[in-house]
């Protein structure tokens, strides 16, 4: 038997794909497809809004970047609290290191979202992500995404105001997934995104941070070792939060990470 045959036989013990997990994977794929299909439904919100050149009306601006700062600051408070804080369970009821368990899935919204026909590369080429064609992103970062041109005035840290933000935070994963006192977790589930351990959460602000009490933030944390990729969208009280959640799901599904 030559070396190739021996290599082939290494997979003799390969298990067949678990039917439950395979069916779940297929269902998740179809849910992504449902989001794409809905954009072509006559009269859909997305079709109307794209005709007007916006995803949705926005009487007030949203500090999505501020939300990211709140998330990081809230976790940093815990981090500065000392070993007790960092050694706390990173996610309620789970071990500090993400395990490959299968928690009850968060309900997926069946909202119409536009096709992700555009892509950009993040700072230092660390990641690549797709976003809706016709949307705007900050030219130097591929970190803020919105249907309208970004307003860079009056924002914390000079960042723009955007419906969805993605960025790499210089903090370890375990430190960020614990919201500390700034928010409570409405839901939290472990995922794999771009081949990395990740957690997807719906947080509700307690009012002790920058966000008003009751503000919902939908957020992904992706483990990059000493750093964490954070993708988020925040409920501004407008009717499109579920649509933006859906869009963030799809954008994160398109994510590719480069480098170690």
């Amino acid at each position: 038997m030559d070396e190739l045959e021996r290599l082939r036989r290494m997979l003799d013990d390969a298990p067949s794909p678990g039917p439950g997990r395979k069916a779940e994977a297929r269902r998740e794929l179809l849910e992504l497809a449902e989001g794409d299909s809905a954009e072509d439904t006559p009269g859909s919100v997305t079709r109307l809004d794209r005709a007007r050149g916006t995803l949705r009306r926005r009487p007030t601006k949203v500090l999505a970047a501020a939300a990211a700062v709140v998330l990081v600051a809230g976790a940093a408070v815990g981090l500065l609290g000392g070993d007790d804080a960092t050694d706390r369970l990173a996610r309620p009821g789970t071990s500090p290191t993400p395990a490959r368990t299968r928690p009850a899935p968060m309900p997926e919204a069946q909202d119409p979202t536009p096709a992700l026909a555009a892509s950009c590369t993040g700072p230092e080429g660390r990641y690549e992500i797709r976003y809706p064609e016709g949307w705007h992103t900050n030219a130097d970062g591929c970190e803020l995404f919105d249907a309208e041109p970004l307003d860079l005035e009056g924002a914390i840290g000079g960042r723009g105001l955007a419906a969805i933000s993605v960025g790499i935070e210089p903090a370890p994963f375990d430190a960020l997934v614990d919201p500390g006192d700034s928010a409570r977790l409405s839901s939290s589930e472990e995922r794999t995104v771009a081949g990395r351990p990740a957690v997807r959460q719906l947080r509700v602000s307690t009012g002790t941070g920058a966000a008003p009490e009751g503000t919902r933030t939908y957020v992904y944390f992706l483990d990059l070792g000493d750093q964490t990729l954070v993708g988020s969208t925040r409920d501004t009280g407008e009717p499109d939060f579920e649509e933006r959640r859906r869009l963030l799901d799809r954008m994160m599904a398109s994510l590719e990470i480069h480098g170690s």
Partner: protein
Amino acid sequence: MVTEAPETDAAIITRSRDDPRAFAAIFDRHYDAIHRFLWGRIGDAAEDVTAEVFKVAFERREDYDPNYPSAKPWLFGIASRLAKQDLRTRARTRELRERKTKEPDQPAIRGPEQRLHELALSTPVAGALTELPERDRDPLLLYVWGDLTYEEIARSLDLPVGTVRSRIHRARRVLRERLAEGTTDGRDDDG
């Protein structure tokens, strides 16, 4: 009775740009093969990463070149990249955990070698695989486990065909030498 040739992957992907649900056919055709390949590469995480492969592929279907009828090279290329990322991440996570808990050190086995190390406990050929540099091992595994042609591997890894040939040739030579040494030393031979 005239039977129609099955629709090519390229045709399905093209159709899915207007009818996204059609992409499920790509999943149905290739899921098992991708899962099997990833099981060899990364073990128990194969189910999660296989699901990710098709999500990434779906989101990038606009980029697919319809001049290539089979999506296998494209899918296996995505799978290879995600597998490497998964292995490196888990190796790093393990490293961080060991540092935190101050557990006794095992020899530092990182990244893709970890999975092959696990398999090497029972298969000497996997032990030989760990000695191959990644640039030679990847095309070899796509050839043997992915059942891709040299041209398909070249597309998958974005390499010239000649480079694929030479790397697989070199990898096979090293494997033969290592396995011959193992037989000479009286080690278990799974042949």
